[in-house]
């Protein structure tokens, strides 16, 4: 039987990177979950919006990439708060004025910091968020494989462990 210490190490080695990985996954999950907003808009907002499905689509896309400052963890697109509604309207207006998606993002980053992006820009120290979880899972998997192999050998009376 594998020594208890080794088991503790394996469990911790799996749990720690899983925490990291799950954090990174929640941050990218909103991309996959772009939904039609079912939140009602006021009559005034509806009138102001005018018919423009293309603009709406770009607005939704952009809103899904920005974090709602009030409901942490939700994108502006998914957040039911009034602040999120106001921000969506602002995004739409800025896009309608002719600003590019990058310019709108820059505006929000200038007010809230890079934290407002749901997906951190893949540059500099932020790369760690993408690379470390992958490394962690690979490392953890490697540890499991090694430990399980050793455990199997120890338990199999036909195998002589000292021969390996």
């Amino acid at each position, binding site marked *: 039987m594998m020594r208890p*210490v*080794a088991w503790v*190490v394996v469990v*911790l*080695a799996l749990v*720690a990177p899983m*925490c*990291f990985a799950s954090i990174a996954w929640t941050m990218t999950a909103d991309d996959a979950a772009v939904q039609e907003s079912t939140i009602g808009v006021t009559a005034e907002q509806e009138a102001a919006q005018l018919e423009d499905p293309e603009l709406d689509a770009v607005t939704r896309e952009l809103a899904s990439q920005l974090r709602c*400052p*009030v409901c*942490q963890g939700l994108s502006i697109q998914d957040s039911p708060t*009034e*602040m999120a509604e*106001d*921000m969506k*309207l*602002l995004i739409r207006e800025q896009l309608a004025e002719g600003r590019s998606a990058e310019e709108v993002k820059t505006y929000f*980053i*200038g*007010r*809230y*910091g890079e*934290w407002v992006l749901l997906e951190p820009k893949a540059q500099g120290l932020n790369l760690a968020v993408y690379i470390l979880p992958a490394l962690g899972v690979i*490392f953890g998997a490697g540890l499991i494989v090694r430990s399980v192999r050793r455990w199997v050998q120890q338990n199999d009376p036909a195998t002589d462990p000292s021969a390996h």
Partner: protein
Amino acid sequence: MRWKPILIAAAIIVPLLALFTFGMTTDPRTVPTPLAGGEAPDFALEIMPLEGEPGSSEEEPVRVRLSDHIGDIVVVNFWASWCLPCREEHAPLMRVAETYQDRGVAFYGILYNDSPGNAQRWLEEMGGQSYPTLLDPRSRTAIDYGLYGVPETFFIGRDGRLAYKHFGPVTEQVLVEQIESLQPVGEEVGP
């Protein structure tokens, strides 16, 4: 006891645990504002009438512009009637505003995500206000200031630059400290 795997695991886990522990001690809401040190975003907002007062006429509503206040220290407090911590900071804000009103320090409240009716009732319940509250339709100014929630208080220097953003209810001590730090060097001011 085989040390090598334990050491390797520890070398990974210990820094991770340290990082998580450190993370637990920080408040995710107090991210420093990227606006600090730069020009405070301008605004031109209507003053909220108090209960019983006539509102400004539809044609020419009176607007308060930040850009009209160059030369003054401006303290901007975002608040709402549904915000519990805002009750704590109401009295200190009123007191300090009154103390500094003749010293070139302007205080403004900006209502966030709330109706004027609620705000007026709240002010009446809290004993009135010593400076105007401004209305911010569609939270344009709130977004411009990178607001996460209420209360947040912004301190703007005489040159129009945003000096400091305070998260959560502000105290008399913070108010006085920040205002004093914005007075030009050499000027003798006391509370």
